[in-house]
Each structure stands twice: as structure tokens, then as C-alpha cells.
């Protein structure tokens, strides 16, 4: 296994790992590699000028992308396999593409960048994300977009091809979540938007009012909403051209907009 040949200290890596097939590109076999070792390697490669990574046989390694704070914000990281929890946690730039499913905590407190998942995602996807975009082809787990935020020009977006489990958008304070329901499965999530006080969720398909938290309401789409959907569904299809539907076909479906009733849901519960 190539990984074991590598000196993983903070010193410069010896150039006997991986195979570079073009300048600035590197392929890493992550089989059996502990998380810290893999992330050391990624960082050292980045500092050495690598801009494109292909990670093979990833299986459970955590925090991929987290330590890539440095001279560039535009790395391309392609992952084959199943990365571990906290993929792209605190991510501040870069583009991560996963060919497969991802686990829990993807994009945790992410600030910038893009994560593309060609499969399904586990729980707490995009928790407290403040910037960047996440595209998931299939379904997502519990507590997606929990406490998602926005600030000035930072308006994060989560586009999900399938559906979600409970507590979608809990505490949501900003940003855009789009749930396309493409797999044909009904939306069964409960507690959608519990405690939501900012941002917006667009949901393609139908839901019952009882599935919503008491802090949100459903409203018709306006021009601005249409423009947002047009843009992000377009970007979604760019990333997953194999989805087999056109943008028009998708947007023809029944679209529901869920937004908070108040920016201050708990303003009145205290005695002053």
C-alpha cells in the first residue's frame, strides 16, 4: 500500500507517494489510511502546489478538506468511496466531489466552497453552514440544514435531489434549501422548519401542514423565487446531467415555499 511509504510529519513530503499524471494533480490511494495521515498528505500536497486530487478507496476517513486552509481556495478534490463524518467541516473554499454516499456532518459550519455528492447523505448535512453550496443527488438524513445562516453576500445553498428525514431546516437562520423529490418518494419528514427564523426552503411535491414546525408558513412563489429555483436547479443539473429530466420538467412540478413567520420566533416568551 503506497500510503505506508509516506513520511507523514509536518515536514515536506517525500515525493514517492501517489502518481502525478499531470503537473498539479495527484492521485492518492487512501485504503487503510488513518484520517490524520490522509489529511496531512492533502495539506502538504496543497502547500506543494497540487490543485487537483483524486482520492481512491476512501472508507470512513474524516474531516477531508478541513485542514486545507492556505494559499488557495480553489482545489478540486474528487473522492471515490465513502468518506467519513465531518467531510468538509469548516470548509473555506475548494470543490469536493464524492462518487458515492456520504455519512453524517457533511459541510459542518462550512464557510465557502462546494460539495457535490453523487449519492445520498447522512444526518446533519450542512449544519450551521454560512457560505458555499452543497448538491446531493439522492436523499438526506435527519436535521439537514440545521441552523443554516447567511450574511451579506454569503447566502449558502443546499440542493437535494431526493427527499429528507425529520427536522429539515431546524433553527434555520438564512440560506436556501431546495428539495426536489426526484426519486418519486413522498416527503415524509416531520418538524420541517422548527424554530426557523430566516432563509427559505423550496420543496417540490406535496406535504401536509402537520409536517411543518409552528414557526413557518407556506406561501406562493414569486418572481424572485422562480429566479432562484431556475438558477440552482440549473446548477444541480449541470452537476448531475444523468438525472434524466430537463430543468423545465423539474420546475413544472408543484413547488412549495416554506419561510419563517417571524425573524424573532421567541421574542415574546420572556417576562421583562
Amino acid at each position, binding site marked *: 500500500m503506497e500510503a505506508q511509504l509516506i513520511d507523514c510529519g509536518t515536514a515536506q513530503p517525500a515525493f514517492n507517494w501517489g502518481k502525478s499524471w499531470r503537473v498539479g494533480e495527484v492521485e492518492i490511494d487512501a485504503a487503510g489510511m488513518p484520517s490524520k495521515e490522509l489529511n496531512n498528505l492533502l495539506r502538504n500536497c496543497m502547500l506543494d502546489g497540487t490543485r487537483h486530487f483524486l482520492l481512491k478507496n476512501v472508507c470512513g476517513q474524516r474531516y477531508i478538506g478541513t485542514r486545507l486552509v492556505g494559499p488557495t481556495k480553489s482545489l478540486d478534490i474528487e473522492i471515490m468511496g465513502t468518506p467519513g463524518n*465531518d467531510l468538509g*467541516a*469548516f470548509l473555506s473554499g475548494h470543490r469536493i466531489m464524492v462518487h458515492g454516499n456520504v455519512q453524517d456532518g457533511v459541510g*459542518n*459550519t462550512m*464557510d465557502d466552497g462546494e460539495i457535490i455528492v453523487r449519492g445520498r447523505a447522512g444526518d446533519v448535512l450542512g449544519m450551521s453552514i454560512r457560505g458555499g453550496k452543497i448538491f446531493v443527488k439522492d436523499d438526506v438524513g435527519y436535521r439537514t440544514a440545521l441552523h443554516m445562516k447567511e*450574511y451579506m453576500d454569503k447566502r449558502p445553498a443546499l440542493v437535494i435531489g431526493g427527499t429528507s428525514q425529520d427536522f429539515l431546516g431546524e433553527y434555520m437562520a438564512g440560506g436556501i434549501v431546495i428539495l426536489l423529490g426526484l426519486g418519486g418518494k413522498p416527503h415524509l419528514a416531520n418538524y420541517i422548519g422548527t424554530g426557523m427564523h430566516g432563509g427559505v426552503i423550496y420543496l417540490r411535491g406535496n406535504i401536509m401542514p402537520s409536517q411543518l414546525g409552528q414557526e413557518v408558513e407556506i406561501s406562493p412563489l414569486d418572481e424572485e423565487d422562480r429566479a432562484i429555483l431556475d438558477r440552482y436547479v440549473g446548477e444541480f443539473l449541470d452537476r448531475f446531467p444523468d438525472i434524466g429530466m430537463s430543468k423545465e420538467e423539474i420546475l413544472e412540478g408543484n413547488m412549495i415555499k416554506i419561510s419563517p413567520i417571524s425573524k424573532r420566533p*421567541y421574542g415574546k416568551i420572556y417576562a421583562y
Partner: protein
Amino acid sequence: MRSYLFPEFQVFRDESKCNQCRGCERQCAFGTHIYDPATDRMQTDETKCSGCQRCAIFCPRNALVVRPTPPYYRPNEAWTREKIDDLKKQAETGGVLLSGCGSDKPFRIYWDNIVLNASQVTNPSIDPLREPMELRTFLGRKPDLLEIDDCGEICTELGPNITVEAPMLFSAMSYGAISYQAFNSLAMAAREFGTLFNTGEGGLPREMREEFGRYATVQVASGRFGIDAEYLNCARAIEIKVGQGAKPGIGGHLPAEKVSSKVAATRMIPEGTDAISPAPHHDIYSIEDLSMLIYALKEATNYELPVSVKVAAVHNVAAIASGIVRAGADIVAIDGMRGGTGAAPKAIRDNVGIPIELALSAVDRRLREEGVRNRCTIIAGGGIRCSSDVIKAIALGADAVYIGTAALIAMGCTLCQKCYTGKCNWGICTQDPRLAGRLDTRIASQRLVNLLTAWSFEIKEMLGGMGINAIESLRGNRDHLRGVGLYEWELDVLALKGAGE
């Protein structure tokens, strides 16, 4: 609805001294004092008074006295005035009672039941003014052993450690909860004295990062406000805030009134929305999840910063602390139930958690029993009022203490407990530029430095008396403490002998 409440305070004005300068009117943001041009007299609305004493202290003629209203109701041990008034307030509003500052309830203060030792005859006491006396403290994880190679080089990887010149750090107070001026004063004092301040969960304003980042512990709390790579990497240490002594187990809620444009920018949230901190970190539902966040933060900072985990002192705090150390934390911070807050539901503040003295002793003992005490640093906070509290905390096992309420008092706070109104007349707990501007950062930071300096002298004096000239020799050294007036179970938890034993 007419309120059935008595005013909490009475304001007495000596008309013979008052010259209607209207200073009191300007001082009081609550609107207690009003000038009546018709009579050319100052009027008083006592229902507004918070008892903060700002007007009395700043009255140029000493014409004002503010004092608590006597308990007018028929005396009743069960239904005290506080209980009756709280109940009326809720009947009038239907709301959750809020309060500020730490709990004022008469739980036993163990510091006051512990006495220190001094050397007599068998070993000499030390005069700190003329002999070396060392308070320098390292915060961070230490390895179990040090391997040295033949050339005298250290082979063991030493984890990141922070040096502070005395075992006292400012505890977490966020910009947003306190004013920019107060926040800045803490940062300036930390830099000047050689210790750390703690950003709380409200972020660190960008313009402060270069100048004060090296003196900052930056917090990562459940709200994840203002966190980006630069925030984490400019700091000296990172603290995951799991809980706070004043309100264990519940979230926070910075009302929109306090989210000014600058607070919003620092927290990176839209102006004018409530900043809500969930009760738990939603990526931590278990000890292995905590480990995951600890290592995520270490990854985000290239393993260069120590990571602290702050928890409220609760019933099984010893087991929790042990888990925290095993989860990879370098520092465990424990906040006792008397710890302060800018706003907490009163029911929580006065009823949840345990006193810091018991928690600290239990944690120190448990970590020693399990042989992992050296792997971490313990910081104790929540009710440290004076230098002797500090030294007793060290002897009960703390490496250092957090100072919160004491620091606020040094800046002018009078513990009126109205922090949650945002109208702090002392310019500390407010975002109103007029009020905050009253706090001169130069003076406030000087007061803070003076406090730390005075306490350091006193600590050295007490250490010298015990015949100890380096603070590490007192750490966990309960032989220098005795309990007075404590039950046996209390002595057991504190692992102390009774006086004379």
C-alpha cells in the same frame, strides 16, 4: 393591566443638596429620573429603578440614596417577597422570568468554609517581596513521559501549550452580550497582564484579530456564530462551549435589539434577527461526537492550538470530565452554578447545577484515580470572588481559574441583575452607543490589570506563608487546606480533613 408589584428600590433625594443639574436623568437609561420644568424639580419613577447605583455614585452633590424597598408583605418564610413578586410578574405577562448575573441564592459557599495552612517552625515561610515566587502556568496537554535522545533533544511530541503569567484568565463574555468597549477592555487587559481573554460565542471583530488574537481563546458554541478559518487560526486556544454554570443544558438567545450592525458583522448574521444558540451542539449527541468536533477543530487549525471543552458543573461532572479528556481535549473548563450570565431563565439559574468547589474536587480526584490528570489542564470558574478563592481552587486541583463576574465588577458592574434589558448604565452589558461610550477602555482595562496585579500579590503572599514558591506545588495539594463547619460527606467530596484533624 395594572401591575400589583411594589418597586424593587426606593430613591431618596436630598432636596437641600439637589440643584437640578439633571445628571441623574442623563445617567439612568431606565428612565427613573425625570426633570419637571413646571416645578423645576427632579421627579422619580421608582418602578423603573434597577438599583444599579449609577446615579447615586455619579451625583456631583451626593444628593441621592438608592436602597431596596423593605419587604412590605406579611413576613412569610415560605412565600418570600421574591416568590410573591415573581409570581405576580408571571401572572401579568405569562412569560419566562429572566435574570442576569450568577445565582444569588444562599447555597453554601465552600470557599468560606475552607482555611489555608501556613508554615510555622518546621519549615520556613517565604517572603514573596524578596524571594522568587512563581505563578507561571502552562495550559494544555502534557505527555506521560519525555523521551530525550543522546544529543539531549526532545523526541516526544509536545502538544501545544499556552503560557500565562498567573493562573487567572478572563472567562467567556461575548461581544453582543457585553459592549464593544467592555470586550475590548478585557482584551487589552489580557495583553497587558499576560493572560487570555475569551471571546464567548459572539465572534472576534476582524480589526481586533491581529492585535489581540494572540491573547484570545475563541469559542465554538452551539450557535456557531462568526466562525471561519481566520477566526480559529488567529487565536491562541479554542474552546468548545458545551455548557455554562448559570444555565446548564439550555441554549441562548441574543435578542434582536442587541444585534447591532457591528454585532451582526462579528457574528456574521443579518442585522435585527435574534441570534439563537441551540441547547446542544447538534453535532454532539454523545461523547464520541465530542471527540469528532475536537479533532475537526484541531484539523481546522493544523493541530497548532489547544482545544478546551467547557461544561457546566452538573451531577456527574467527574465522569463527563474524564470522557472529555479521553475524547482528546487539552483543557477541561468547569463552570460552577454561581457563574454569571447576561440572561438566563431564573428557574434554571437558581436550581440547576452544583457548586464549583465540589465539582472541581470531584473532577480532579476522578482524573487522578484514572491516571489521566496530567493529560489535561483544568480551569475552574463560576464564583471566584477573590485571591483566596483562586488559591483554594488551585489546591483543590485547578490549574487556573476563570474570572467573569469579578472582572465585570472591576469595570463598574454592581450586580443589579438587569443585564438582559440591554440598558446597562455602566456601559458594560449594552449595545446602546451612548451607554457603551461611558466605558473608557483605557480606564476599564487599567482597573482589570490592577485587579489581577493585586490578586497576584495576595496569592504570592499566601503561597509564601505555606512555604511554597512555585504555584505548581500547590496544585491539588489538599494538605494545605482544612474544612471548617462542613458535614462529613462534604469533606469527603472535597477530599479534605476537618480543621484540627
